[in-house]
């Protein structure tokens, strides 16, 4: 119901367009003028063809972008930038237009905030800004992205709309918030987007009249006052009379009360807050997909033919013009099922996906349970950066201003729009549908290619620019571009991100995977891999199901299954049982909790890192180490909103790998630790730093931005890293493509993280071990403490942390942010975001040595000896050496970070980072074992290289024969990849460091 706004505003557009266009043209003509204020807009001397193509437009943008280095504008170095001012026309909810000026490169948030200021609206998280795209479809502006990147063509015309319809408007804090919501709903009703019965039209209409005109007063109002107002798509005299009858009965009712009544009735309408999207089901039947606060609704005509509550959905994804949802298995089903829908085109699919992600994030975060929150926030991070409903409620409860006085304007809206729900969409749909699906796909692809190219260049430039400014604010600007999935329109991030997304999404289906891989990689992915994955995932599933069957069931399901039915109990049965909605049940992935708990208990944690480097292209996902081996991104229950997260992770990992490929990076992790005061989290940052210095890309770059506020140092480092990263990206056009992160990770984020910490810590603790050398002493001490704090504190920490962290906890970025904090609490935080950490860590860990291919025998030996020997053989020595060498570059890093890099550099000797073709991380776990496999494919100088890094973490209360485990792992690895050689093995053994085992 939300999507289409009244056609009335559209009608005006053409004219406005011209004006804006002129203004724009002029603006373009005067790129140098430092500050063109609004004057230039109306004056409009220049004229440009409105018919620019997107690409041209893009390039134009690019140019301007380059010249102005927009992002870096803040940097003092750049000095005065020419700020172009754009005139924005915003159609407000009362039908009026609000014109304001914003800088051309301003982000959506700026515009949004200005509008909200203008409206005196504090509870603004329910609202958003829409703009029409080329197809005249409404798209939500991403507040974190620059406006100009979200407006491809035409004038800067927007509309202010309700984005998230609060299920219970009475919980809104301020009357003014409700007032605007009422206005939106009136428009929804009048336009037909929110269908209702005659009786409801009269009731809603009568409250509208009371709110806008006050008490019924025939003398003042006249007899025909009603017909000036619009209440229904097809307003009749009869309706008006009924409205008047009711109006007469409201004497004394205040506008705020009338609005409350209005909302109390409107919220019960079945289509209240339902955002409809046209689609076809798998059989080509026309349906509508409705996104609402509780989930996804499937309509055929007006009939609801299915409904998927958010908790029922494991994953949402889109690929080309297909939209997929993966459904949690029901009571009788063994496996998840994936349901696909065909959208009119790629953009529609993406739009739907975004709306889903945002709604899920916004509304599901409400749930009081902590666990689901985490997960939600995980996914949310990328997609939806705003506050959740829960958060906004919290925030609005703090509003202490006296209720603002505001004038309720008579609705100026007339029933111009004859179109019912999404009529425009329909047209669109039809048009698109006419092009055969194949055509659509082809187009997209083409587009993609082009874009990719563009992207590369652009990024490169950005890099440079950033490098220049890097020290100042590079960090901030960058992240959104690179990471944010939402910014479809932005050319910069677009393809990579998109592909990555697609890949992820596709990950669900084996075929899809193939596809994505195919597209991305030059190297043909071995089919085996896919098969392997599939089988693994199946294993995983079965595993999960056995263990977690109960949690998987809905309360409802449970009750049903246990319902007295015909059982003997029926007689005594109390009979009335609450049927809980599926919604009720939490999304907690069955596996999550248990795993987490296990972690804390584990006394010993041993990690084995086995790295394989092969010159050949062969890739096998060897991930499944143990019998239990579960892997694949697909499997996770929490995948749901993970897409965003996953992607992030992927990116991170990729980056990490990129670094690796160049050769030097592996020790980064450790270094990082040192730098940051021993927190694992620090590791990431450290990595970034290192990377930056080393010229290698750091995953951290984007993510670090959030960090900035916390630590200046971190920022700097990040900056560097960022710039470098960018370069890499540019180089690899297709880089991002495949990364697949395992949902698993998400589930047991804590586990892995801990383990990592443990490992590291271990190194610290036991001076004997070579590890020690890697980790700076300082780090060691703190680290141990941190570890103890770890698991449980995480939650608290989060709370304490900035808002951002809470929201995005899982995101890589956040993690980093926290990392800088250095305090143990931070560590905890990282725990929550463990997933991302893992990935990155893995990458790094594995990193250590390209050069030194160590004989397996040695490795084994090392294992036996305990971690120390192993390390000493390979990495340790290297590290030491490295320290000397690289430290210099690491200036940013406070501590000893430097050491690592140097070592790496030595090892690698290979400066050329190569082009990252693909990166894949697979995680599998059992109760006591977590296996993470990271596969990276890179091309250097025509030679493709596949690296498989496998990290196995064994956790347990009891003694574990680590040697045997390692031997087994190596053996398996060899068997799985007969044509690859083992180049490095690292063993970390951690014995209860902290007395706090008992935590759990």
């Amino acid at each position, binding site marked *: 119901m939300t999507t289409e706004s009244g056609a009335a505003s559209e009608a005006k557009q053409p004219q406005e367009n011209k004006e804006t266009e002129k203004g724009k043209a002029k603006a373009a003509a005067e790129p140098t003028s430092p500050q063109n204020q609004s004057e230039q807009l109306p004056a409009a001397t220049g004229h440009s063809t409105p018919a620019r193509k997107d690409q041209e437009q893009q390039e134009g943008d690019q140019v301007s972008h380059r010249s102005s280095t927009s992002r870096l504008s803040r940097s003092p170095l750049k000095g005065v930038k020419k700020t172009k001012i754009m005139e924005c026309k915003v159609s407000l909810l009362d039908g009026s237009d609000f014109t304001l000026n914003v800088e051309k490169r301003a982000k959506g948030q700026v515009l949004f905030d200005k509008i909200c200021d203008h409206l005196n609206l504090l509870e603004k998280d329910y609202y958003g800004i829409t703009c029409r795209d080329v197809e005249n479809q409404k798209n939500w502006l991403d507040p974190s992205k620059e406006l100009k990147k979200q407006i491809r063509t035409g004038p800067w015309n927007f509309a202010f709309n309700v984005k998230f319809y609060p299920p219970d408007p009475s919980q809104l804090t301020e009357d003014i918030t409700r007032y605007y919501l009422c206005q939106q709903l009136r428009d929804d009703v009048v336009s037909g987007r929110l269908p209702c019965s005659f*009786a409801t039209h009269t009731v809603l209409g009568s409250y509208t009249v009371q709110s806008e005109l006050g008490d019924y007063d025939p003398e003042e109002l006249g007899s025909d006052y009603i017909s000036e107002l619009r209440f229904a798509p097809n307003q009749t005299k009869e309706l008006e009379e009924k409205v008047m009858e009711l109006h007469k009965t409201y004497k004394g009712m205040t506008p705020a009360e009338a609005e409350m009544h209005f909302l109390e*009735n409107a919220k019960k309408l079945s289509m209240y807050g339902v955002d409809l999207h046209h689609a076809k089901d798998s059989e080509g039947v026309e349906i509508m997909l409705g996104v609402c606060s509780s989930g996804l609704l499937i309509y055929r005509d007006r009939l*609801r033919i299915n*409904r998927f509550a958010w908790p029922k959905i494991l994953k949402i994804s889109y690929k080309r013009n297909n939209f997929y949802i993966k459904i949690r298995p029901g009571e009788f089903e063994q496996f998840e099922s994936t349901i696909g829908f065909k959208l009119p085109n790629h953009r529609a699919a993406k739009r739907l996906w975004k709306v889903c992600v945002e709604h899920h994030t916004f509304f599901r975060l409400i749930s009081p349970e902590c666990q689901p929150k985490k997960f939600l926030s995980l996914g949310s991070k990328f997609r939806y950066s705003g506050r959740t409903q829960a958060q906004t409620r919290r925030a609005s409860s703090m509003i202490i201003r006296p209720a603002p006085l505001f004038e309720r304007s008579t609705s100026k809206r007339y029933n111009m729009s004859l179109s019912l729900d999404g009529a425009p969409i329909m047209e669109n749909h039809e048009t698109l549908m006419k092009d055969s699906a194949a055509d659509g796909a082809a187009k997209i692809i083409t587009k993609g290619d082009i874009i990719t190219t563009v992207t590369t260049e652009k990024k490169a430039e950005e890099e440079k620019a950033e490098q220049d400014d890097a020290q100042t604010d590079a960090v901030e600007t960058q992240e959104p571009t690179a990471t944010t999935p939402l910014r479809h329109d932005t050319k910069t991030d677009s393809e990579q991100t998109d592909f990555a997304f697609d890949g992820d999404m596709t990950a669900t289906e084996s075929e899809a995977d193939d596809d994505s891989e195919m597209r991305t990689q030059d190297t043909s992915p071995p089919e085996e891999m896919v098969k392997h994955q599939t089988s693994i995932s199946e294993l995983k599933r079965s595993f999960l199901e056995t263990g977690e069957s109960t949690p998987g069931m809905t309360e409802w399901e449970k009750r049903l299954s246990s319902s007295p039915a*015909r059982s003997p109990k*029926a007689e005594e049965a109390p009979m009335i049982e609450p*049927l809980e909605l*599926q919604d009720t049940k939490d999304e907690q992935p069955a596996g999550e909790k248990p795993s987490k708990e296990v972690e804390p208990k584990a006394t010993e944690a041993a990690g084995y890192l086995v790295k394989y480097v092969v010159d050949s292209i062969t890739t096998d996902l060897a991930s499944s180490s143990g019998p239990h081996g579960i892997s694949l991104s697909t499997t996770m229950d929490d995948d749901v909103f993970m897409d965003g997260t996953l992607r992030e992770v992927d990116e991170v990992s990729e980056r990490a790998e990129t670094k690796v490929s160049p050769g030097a990076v592996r020790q980064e992790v450790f270094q990082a630790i040192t730098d940051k005061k021993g927190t694992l989290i620090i590791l990431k940052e450290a990595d970034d730093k290192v990377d930056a210095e080393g010229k290698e890309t750091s995953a951290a770059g984007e993510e670090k931005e959030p960090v900035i506020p916390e630590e200046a140092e971190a920022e700097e480092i990040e900056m560097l890293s960022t710039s470098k990263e960018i370069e890499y990206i540019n180089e690899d056009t297709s880089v991002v493509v495949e990364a697949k992160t395992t949902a698993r990770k998400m589930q047991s984020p804590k586990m892995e993280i801990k383990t990592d910490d443990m490992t590291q810590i271990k190194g610290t603790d036991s001076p004997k071990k070579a590890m020690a050398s890697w980790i700076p002493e300082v780090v060691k001490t703190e680290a141990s403490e941190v570890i103890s704090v770890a698991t449980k504190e995480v939650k608290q920490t989060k709370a304490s942390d900035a808002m951002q962290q809470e929201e995005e906890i899982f995101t890589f970025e956040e993690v980093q942010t926290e990392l800088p904090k250095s305090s143990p609490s931070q560590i905890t935080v990282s725990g929550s975001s463990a997933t991302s950490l893992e990935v990155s860590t893995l990458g790094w860990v594995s990193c250590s040595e390209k050069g030194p291919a160590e004989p397996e025998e040695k490795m084994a030996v090392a294992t036996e000896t305990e971690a120390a020997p192993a390390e000493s053989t390979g990495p340790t020595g290297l590290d030491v050496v490295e320290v000397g060498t690289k430290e210099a570059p690491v200036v940013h890093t406070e501590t000893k970070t430097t050491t690592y890099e140097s070592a790496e550099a030595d090892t690698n000797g290979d400066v050329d980072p190569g082009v990252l073709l693909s990166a894949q991380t697979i995680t599998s776990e059992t109760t006591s074992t977590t296996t993470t496999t990271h596969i990276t494919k890179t091309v250097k100088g025509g030679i493709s290289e596949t690296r498989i890094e496998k990290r196995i973490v064994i956790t347990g209360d009891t003694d574990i024969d680590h040697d045997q485990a390692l031997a087994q792992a190596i053996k398996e690895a060899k068997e799985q990849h007969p044509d690859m050689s083992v180049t490095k093995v690292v063993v970390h053994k951690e014995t209860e460091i902290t007395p706090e085992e008992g935590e759990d």
Partner: protein
Amino acid sequence: MAGLMSDFGCYTHAIVRAIPASLAKEALRSSHAEVDLAKARREHELYTEVLRTTLGLEVVELPADESLPDCVFVEDAAVVCGDTALITRPGAESRRRETEAMSKALKDLNLNIVEMTDENATLDGGDVLFTGREFFVGLSKRTNQRGAEILADAFKDYAVSTVPVLEGLHLKSFCSMGGPGLIVIGAGESAQKTLKIMQQMSDHRYDKLTVADDFGANCIYMNLPNKGHVLLHHTAEQYPQSVKVFEKLKDHMLIPVCNMQKVKVDGALTCCSVLINKKANV
């Protein structure tokens, strides 16, 4: 204050129809049971008496039509919600003309009449479960998708979800409302399955009351002034197990109604009346 979707179970009027002699032989039935016409008529009189006298509803009694052996089951001919009445297009060819008298009676009550004219649509009122917040329409031998679509169009305020009727004649052959947010459901496997689907489709929370007999799950709930929650259910003689369950509803005024004969022609309690709330009309 005008309010919508409140007043669930509030009724002021009821429409019933007399039993034609043809019911005994010609009425449709899924079994081969013999109907005792006299007993059936006696049952129906008692039923009507409960509505009129015990519950104080204004009862409109339509005359029987011998050419419409099933005409006593008025529920199938119309769906009334609020001030709107949808005149159905019954799935059984032989019953189509039942709607004529119904339509006239509803018009006389000043309801907004919506006719189901689409010849591809079929809908029996017995397949329509209104919970107070939404509709469930059972897709059965008598009701098809198109019929449900038209119903959805007639009652725009409400979500209308389709659910499969796997067993039994109608959706309400194994379920009904036992109170606001309380679904009475038979213990049969297919009934439970359907309930599960209903649950999945719904945004709202319901309690369920499971009774041993599918058919026993058909009861009539009302919320009447001075009487509170009222539940008309089958007698203990008919469904002893189910009645035990109903007897645990402490807040309800329980009224057992004999339905032994009509059951033989698939007639449940809800089938025999169309309930209307004239007060709710704005």
